[in-house]
């Protein structure tokens, strides 16, 4: 019995198997892998491991999950924070265990991850892919549920002093939504800012290691309560009139996310409660 089979036997409950059986499965090859290296077995194990943290450590509260379409292409757009991609993991689990209709989420990750031994492959195995527009288009064309953080490292690597302040959004996600006709579900993530509060970025070390940032922060994520607020799907016309028009659409998404962050902040009594 391989390591994967042992892990699956030890970690994946029958309840989890039942949830995954309800997830619409896109085309996979004869060995259970898709072209991005994701596997059903790997996703089950990843979900089983992180669901424990989701329930017991970060005590995630998810609102508005009914806004995530049960089938068909969709872009989930959220604010990014917390140095590590924990927000992506938490949104993925919320979507994969959505009582209204679970989906197999595909999180777009920063481009440096594939170069990191073990981490890149593990992320691929559970369904994450590098944030390349071609990947995103291909997945949306396959009617998948794609999670994008348009702030990228500007959001995840920002200092604690800038918490809950949206950084510049790239316009790429809006072009993809308009090109493919995918609706956008905005998400406000609250709590990940407090999991790894950073007071400084050691830029020379980051440059030396080829990383986007090296934060001065706690050695492990703190047990902040995470609140996810999913907004109603936003639809945009397919025709791009001008880049200014695209920017207006992006601003509309940002406004929604700001409102959803505010909603999330009102839901908790404090960062850890």
């Amino acid at each position, binding site marked *: 019995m391989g390591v994967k089979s042992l892990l699956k036997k030890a970690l994946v409950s029958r309840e989890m198997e039942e949830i995954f059986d309800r997830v619409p499965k896109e*085309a996979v*090859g*004869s*060995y259970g*892998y*898709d*072209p*991005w*290296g994701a596997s059903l077995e790997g996703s089950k194990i990843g979900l089983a491991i992180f669901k424990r943290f989701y329930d017991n450590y970060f005590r995630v509260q998810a609102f508005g999950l009914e806004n995530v379409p049960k089938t068909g292409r969709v872009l989930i757009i959220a604010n990014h924070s917390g140095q590590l991609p924990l927000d992506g993991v938490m949104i993925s689990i919320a979507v994969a265990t959505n009582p209204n209709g679970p989906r197999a989420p595909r999180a777009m990750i920063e*481009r440096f991850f*594939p*170069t*990191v*031994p*073990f*981490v*890149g*492959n593990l992320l*691929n195995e559970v369904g994450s*892919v*590098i944030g*390349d527009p*071609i*990947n995103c288009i*291909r997945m949306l064309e396959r009617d998948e549920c794609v999670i994008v953080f348009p702030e990228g490292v500007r959001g995840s690597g920002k200092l604690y002093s800038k918490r809950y302040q949206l950084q510049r959004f790239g316009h790429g996600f809006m072009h993809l939504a308009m090109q493919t006709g995918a609706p956008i579900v905005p998400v406000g993530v609250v709590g990940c800012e407090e999991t790894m509060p950073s007071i400084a970025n050691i830029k020379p070390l980051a440059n030396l290691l080829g990383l986007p940032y090296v934060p001065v922060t706690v050695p492990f994520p703190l047990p902040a309560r995470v609140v996810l607020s999913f907004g109603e799907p936003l639809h945009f016309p397919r025709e791009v009139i001008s880049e200014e028009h695209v920017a207006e659409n992006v601003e509309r998404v940002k406004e929604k996310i700001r409102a959803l962050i505010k909603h999330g902040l009102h839901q908790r009594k404090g960062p850890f409660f």
Partner: protein
Amino acid sequence: MPAKKTGKKKQKVLVTGAAGVLAQQTIARLSGSHPIVAVDFRRAVEIGPDIPSYRVDFLKRGLEDVFRQHDIGTVIHIGRIGTDIGGKFFRYNANVIGTQKLYDLCVKYNVNHVVMMSSYFVYGASPYNPALLDEDTPLKASDLTLNLIDTVELENLSQIYLYKHPQLNMQILRPTNIAGPGVRNNIGRLLSRRWAPVLMGFNPVMQFIHVLDLADAISLLLEKPKKAGIYNLAPNDWVPYKTVLSECNIHAVPFPSVPTGLTVGISRWLNWKAFPSYLVNYFKYPVIIDGGKFERTFGFKPARSLEEIFTHYRELKKEPWV
């Protein structure tokens, strides 16, 4: 003077690289319906009494004699100096300059169909590659290693002829990893072994096409209308490298993966034909290509499964001499 074409007799199909298994399988499929001429730079291959076969160096003038003596209508250019033979300058001359001479003869002797065998290596194994690379993706292989320059240059040269000489009806094929009985390329050699290196922390998904499927695909091109262009050839099936090794009964040997210079240095020092230093990144990052265009254009899907390929290599291990 170029040979005058009578239009009465069926024009011949020139197949290069005749000593290789892919060319031989292609010839076997075509020989019943087309007159064949076989050439190879290694030796004159004994194929059959009705098939003229020559040892030809593309850089020498003798190549033109083949065109003078035979009315060639189609050229299937499979022959290549492998990455394990000679230095990069020798390979460049033989593959790029030699192929240019071949294409010039195709133009001179009014050849009306050229099938050129390229490789998915041209895309390069970059960590930033998206999956399902299509034929319009920029070719990045030469960014990564000088040893693959001839592969990319050969493609560029072929593309020049594709557009400059539309009468050649050139079809450039970029197959993924070719495997199966008799295949002696890098991956074929690797899968035939009992031990293979695995870069620690990396397990890229891969694609494989059975050599018989590829021969079927090439043969099909002679039966279908000549739609010139560039085509990826790969099945819609994907499998991680470590699973491949396990399915082929190969023991995985951990190999340092970072820094890349160390991996390349060790690989170069070992001088292992199955795992050359310039292909290290292909065992680190996935290069997944989209074979949809070929499938849609010619109605072709590979018939043989990954399991069939792996079974061959499993069975091979039962032979005492492997």
